[in-house]
């Protein structure tokens, strides 16, 4: 016996209005061409021929088994205390869990048949993100002054003599040798012994930034520095 397990994407829908149905599939064809279409209710010959013409695979009036939530499964399998399970079995279960997770996501997708509404929602969210977060990956050379209204994620160095000002939070993943002025909720920066850092009007002692990535926060008018990524351990 040969067994194979697949996860596939299913679009569950009903035909209330034939014209609207066809129009929907015309506009969203690239999105759903690899989905299995599950149609609840009667299918007219017109719809049938349309689906065949578009080469869409479909099934009719079937209740599909729905995936359970990951949490429920984990509880059932009691993964946290199963020390006896050997690694192969563990991997299998993990794989299955991942598959179920995908299926879950599909089920959620099915629930949102009205794609337009979802798209609008996503658009709104990304716009909100766009207006607040700036991502930069170029080097900030000496003499440059970056003034950001919002949050900034900087993926390169800040050289000596450069200045960065943000009204929002600031994350710099590389060494900072210039000055930072941040008025946001938090800062995340690496070990930067030459940096001049002012956070919400308070100068930060950069000797305290000893970890690979440090989070600086202001709580009750006091600056708290906590490690995010600890120092690299050199085993050699």
């Amino acid at each position, binding site marked *: 016996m040969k067994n194979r397990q697949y996860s596939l994407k299913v679009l569950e829908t009903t035909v209330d209005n034939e014209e609207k149905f066809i129009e929907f599939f015309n506009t969203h064809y690239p999105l759903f061409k690899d989905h299995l279409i599950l149609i609840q209710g009667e299918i007219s010959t017109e719809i049938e021929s349309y689906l065949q013409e578009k080469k869409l695979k479909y099934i009719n009036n079937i209740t599909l088994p729905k995936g359970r939530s990951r949490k429920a499964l984990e509880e059932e399998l009691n993964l946290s205390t199963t020390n006896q399970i050997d690694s192969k079995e563990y991997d299998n279960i993990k794989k299955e869990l991942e598959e179920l997770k995908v299926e879950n996501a599909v089920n959620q997708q099915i629930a949102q048949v009205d794609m337009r509404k979802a798209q609008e929602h996503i658009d709104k969210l990304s716009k909100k993100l766009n207006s607040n977060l700036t991502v930069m990956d170029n*080097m900030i*050379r*000496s*003499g*440059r002054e970056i003034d950001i209204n919002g949050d900034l994620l900087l993926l390169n*160095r800040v*050289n*000596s*003599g450069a200045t960065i000002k943000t009204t929002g939070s600031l994350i710099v993943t590389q060494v900072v*040798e210039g000055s930072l002025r941040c008025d946001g909720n938090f800062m995340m920066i690496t070990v930067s012994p030459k940096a001049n850092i002012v956070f919400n009007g308070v100068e930060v002692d950069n000797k305290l930034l000893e970890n690979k990535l440090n989070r600086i926060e202001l709580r009750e008018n006091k600056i708290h520095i906590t490690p995010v990524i600890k120092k690299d351990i050199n085993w050699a």
Partner: protein
Amino acid sequence: MGIVIAVISGKGGVGKTTATANLGLGIAKNSKKCIVVDFDIGQRNLDMILGLENRVVYDLVQVMNGEASVRQAIIKSKTDENLHFLAASQTKDKTVLESDKVKALVAELKAEYDFVILDAPAGIESGYEHTIEFADTAIVVVNPEVSSIRDADRAIGILDSKSQKVKDGEEVDKFLIINRISADMVKSGEMLRSEDILDILNIKLLGKVPEDRGVIDASNQGKPIITNKKSMAGQAYQRIASRICGNSVEMKDIENMNSGMFKKLTGMFR
């Protein structure tokens, strides 16, 4: 069509003019037609270092104002016939430069020579901006010390925003020469390491030149150090010139070379 190279540094006294003179001569020795142009209006030095002090009749500003033709102003080097030189004015100052005149001159030189090397003035004022404006490539000269690195960083920043090539949507190639490296001081940690400098500036390394006592004397005599085959700095400039001409020359690890006489002696008895 030649390549226009601007030699820049930001900070003064790091060896821009010395590098320009040596590289000009080195490129000429590789049998390429090369012209070095002194853009340091008001503070010309290149003529002295090349030993052409007494031959200057017309200068850059006179050429740009139409008082003399390029042909009249160009001086041929005594040491190599492939090397030509255009002097800066000593009486005017940097404000006399104008964008369109610089453009016309650079275009004229570019058509005639394989390499046009522009010696930029120190600082980042208008004179510097005019030098880099029409350059295809920049050679950044630094010393292994923090002030030089920061000034070079600033100069590169300006290059990346004000050059004509950048405005046209292209990128200016930038190469680094680390000048006056003292192996002993790097080893003892007193001098910045090349890796750190490259990390900060993030441009390609063209070569390293060791500290050499002979350089000052060579400049005073008007015979660039590259003509001295025994000099470490001269050899370094030869390698760099060869790289500019498109040959692949291995990078020498100057920081780990035993250069001192004393070390050679102690090495013998070991």
